[in-house]
């Protein structure tokens, strides 16, 4: 009887298993932010780009990845870019804030693929302008390194400092930039405040600041809520600061706020955050 039941259970379980067919080409797993399969970058440029992109991720959570390919294997660069983006999951899962720069030197095509979350900031037009005005002029002179480095810098600028840097229309940019400046200032001051709170071992300063801010901007209840949040934040930050110090990680002013350490080993690349893209961005050729 028991055997019969087990058989039935096993049959039911195995019947409900559905095998998923793999359609798209399987791309190799990323070995870092920079994946130079076509070998057009020197080792020192690769290392400095890798460090820059890691720092960018730690301070803004945006993930930029660079891929150079020997061949597109007959596929369009748009398809390949979307496939790689899907398989690697660039950007955090919550914010979908990833950017992928794909370069195919043999087909002389490139593409900036933008994740859903960054599409409002790095619009198709801005990506296209970066490609046309910054990257392809260098590529036409065979300066791949210069083109890639300045392209990456431009992407970093647009996604963290000034989104309107590459705007072609002048109508709406002026009214938004002052609001953006205020927000950036607020953001920077919050980062420094948090770094300050982290360094102090006691955690009541966070609570006090929270209460004051809440009372000023909201009301009594807001003050109490913000006070509690401030306490919690300071507690977490102080803990994180201590942990990072013990691990020997950098505790400079900027990095002690961001980069909540996950304690991973220094050799291997942990992968990207699982973000998605929907085909936004721009392509170019030279």
């Amino acid at each position, binding site marked *: *009887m028991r055997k*019969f*039941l087990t058989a*039935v*259970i096993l049959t*039911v379980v195995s*019947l*409900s298993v*559905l095998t*998923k*067919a793999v*359609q798209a080409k399987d791309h190799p797993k990323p070995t870092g932010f920079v994946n130079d399969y076509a070998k057009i970058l020197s080792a020192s440029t690769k290392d400095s780009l890798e460090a820059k992109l890691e720092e960018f991720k730690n301070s803004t959570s945006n993930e930029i990845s660079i891929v150079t390919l020997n061949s597109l294997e007959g596929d369009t660069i*748009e398809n390949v870019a*979307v496939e790689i983006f899907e398989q690697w999951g660039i950007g955090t899962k919550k914010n979908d804030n990833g950017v992928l720069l794909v370069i195919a030197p043999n087909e002389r095509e490139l593409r900036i693929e933008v994740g859903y979350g960054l599409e409002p900031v790095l*619009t*198709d*037009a801005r*990506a*296209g*302008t970066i490609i*046309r005005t910054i990257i392809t002029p260098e590529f036409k002179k065979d300066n791949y390194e210069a083109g890639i480095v300045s392209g990456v810098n431009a992407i970093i600028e647009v996604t963290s400092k000034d989104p309107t840097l590459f705007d*072609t*229309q002048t109508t709406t940019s002026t009214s938004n930039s002052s609001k953006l400046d205020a927000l950036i200032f607020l953001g920077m001051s919050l980062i420094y405040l948090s770094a300050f709170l982290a360094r102090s071992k006691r955690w009541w300063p966070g609570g006090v600041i929270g209460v004051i801010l809440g009372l000023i901007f909201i009301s009594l209840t807001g003050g109490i809520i913000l006070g509690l949040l401030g306490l919690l934040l300071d507690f977490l930050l102080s803990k994180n600061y201590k942990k990072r110090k013990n691990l020997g990680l950098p505790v400079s002013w900027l990095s002690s706020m961001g980069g909540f350490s996950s304690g991973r080993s220094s050799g291997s690349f942990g992968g990207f955050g699982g973000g998605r893209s*929907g*085909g*936004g*961005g*721009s*392509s170019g050729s030279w």
Partner: protein
Amino acid sequence: MKKFLLGLLAFAVIVGLSLSNTYNKLVTKTQNVDGQWAQVETQYQRRFDLIPNLVNSVKGAFTQEQEVFGAIAEARTRYSGAQSVDEKAQAATQVESALGRLLVVMENYPQLQSNTTVLGLMDELSGTENRVSVERKRFNDVVKDYNTTIKRFPTNLIASMFNFDARAFFEAVEAAKEAPVVDLDTK
């Protein structure tokens, strides 16, 4: 006797559970298909909204070929009037071919190639076209997944019991495979 009844009960429970399991799975997959189609339509709408900007930027430069603007306007009207999913898909294809004709004509005006506003709009338009094709590809993927599920045994029994029918893929329209030809010698 009691053991036999207990065994039967257990068997019935297992079958019932797996039935509801499968039914729910089919429901989820149908929702995936519908949800993904909505994504495709979102991108159609995005393209629809971009077109007037492009038309306005290039209209002044065209010395002839004004009929392409008429074709675009008509295609857009048809798209906004389309109700069912099939009508919308067909209207979207018409918009695409009208747009294709406009783009071909634009290539005859080199001054447009260096106009930064036009270039920005062209970037947005090709970005939108790419998004349309990405969402369509994803739509076909979920339709394939769903169709495979309802056709495999024994799920197909439950599927037909509850009227889960196969869904149509998004097929490339035959006309779209030919590049649009513009005859400039008519006037």
